[in-house]
């Protein structure tokens, strides 16, 4: 994703991406060490619906509709801020937790502790999982030897 020019929005995009990939148990565990988040007032959801996934013709041409995926969204108010989550799958629990954390992160008094205790470790785990997959792929990279090399 191209980061939004507004740095506050770009920062929010970045933590929302981390929350979209986080399991409910992991979020709950990391939250356990912090003071409880403000009680939420649910504004919408959590509700399950569809997103039509688009691709591009030839990979880089005009858009086409590839097929749909399930998504769960939730919007809530916690304290003075409104949190939102839209997450792949049918995952109401995860959507509520992610929206609560999103609301907390927008509150300047909660932002730093939440970022350090929840977002940073989740991001690190996700990065490690991606690195592990990339390392497995790298082990299956073909190394070609020319015949000339074989003869000498």
């Amino acid at each position, binding site marked *: *994703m191209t980061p*939004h020019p507004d740095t506050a*929005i770009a920062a929010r*995009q970045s933590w*929302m*991406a981390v929350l*979209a*990939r986080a399991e409910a148990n992991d979020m709950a565990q990391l939250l356990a060490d912090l003071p409880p988040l403000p009680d939420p007032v649910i504004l919408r959801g959590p*509700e*399950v*619906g*569809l*997103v*039509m*996934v*688009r*691709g*591009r*013709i*030839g*990979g*880089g*041409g*005009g*858009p*086409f*509709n*590839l*097929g*749909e*995926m*399930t*998504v769960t*969204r939730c*919007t809530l108010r916690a304290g003075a801020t409104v949190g*939102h989550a*839209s*997450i*792949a*799958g*049918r995952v109401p629990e995860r959507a509520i937790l992610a929206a609560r954390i999103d609301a907390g992160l927008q509150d300047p008094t909660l932002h730093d502790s939440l970022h350090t205790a929840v977002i940073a470790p989740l991001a690190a785990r996700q990065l490690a999982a*991606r*690195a*592990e*997959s*990339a*390392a*497995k*792929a*790298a*082990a*299956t*990279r*073909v190394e*070609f030897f020319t015949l000339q090399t074989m003869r000498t």
Partner: protein
Amino acid sequence: MAYVAVKGGERAIDNAHAWLAADRRGDPAVPDLGLAQIREQLGRAIDRVMAEGSLYDRDLAALAIKQSQGDLIEAAFLLRAYRTTLPRFAHSEPVDTAAMAVRRRVSAVFKDLPGGQVLGPTYDYTHRLLDFTLAAGTAPPAPATAPATGAPMQRVNDFLRHEGLIEPDAPADATPGDITRQPLTFPAPRDVRLQALARGDEGFLLGLGYSTQRGYGGNHPFAGEIRVGEVTVEIEPAELGFAIDIGEITLTECQMVNQFKGSKTQPPQFTRGYGLAFGHAERKTMSMALVDRAMRAEELGEDVTAPAQNVEFVLYHSDNIEGTGFVEHLKLPHYVDFQSELETIRRMRAEADAGKEAAE
């Protein structure tokens, strides 16, 4: 086509479905199959059901496979039915396959392409011998790892494009057609054709793709690139006003590269067929790319002679949910229809006999 509703079968139907449920469960002495087992261990079946059901949700696909006793067309049908119960929140930004977290990427045309040939978890080069250690439930060894460069993997067409020898993509941002919302009409533009192919039956597309290789609308294809991996999906919720990343899905992409002798308006060059599908689906996307290219015959000034080049024929018959519906509806009672046909045949027979007697 008409068939009449028949009353009186309710008890038989209920009993048949109860037996089906018991039959599906099989021997109760054998442990019940968990959805997580299907999701984790029957991944290619999950992928196929999601692609043809046109709904990406691995857990729902697992449930559909269990419910249908592994009948994958029935399972895709269940997903198609389920999706109609859900509202559509948004469409995604077009996914960026160049930024894919690639697990597998091979090219049959360039050995030393940037990023290299990455085999990933593949059945290629296996000996297709039954592996009895699987029957014994032996745990596999841990996969090997190696340092990853982290360099982005350029798509092979971007790499070839610099020489101008391959047809470029024409970037555009028009709203694409959607066959889930508007009925298919002809001539069908390429965006609509690709949507239909992406959810089309793998077997049908395989047969058609194969037919192009055997000379029915052939255009000398090379597998320019096949890549499998995860892409992020972004949407822009109206309430936020900016794009957010909602997670990842696994996709397979195939760039088929085809020789093209040129036309009045275009120089000789390589043209391309494109395949993209949910999940790890190489056979599907390769077939899709062959058929996509074949259906571009008219656009490229080639003769339209073969089934795979006939857009109407391909698109009207590629959907296995529609196909199975129409073929299998023949099982339903057609008693009145058939009775009238029977009367017609009897009358024709009587007339033919009468004519013969008169002639003698």
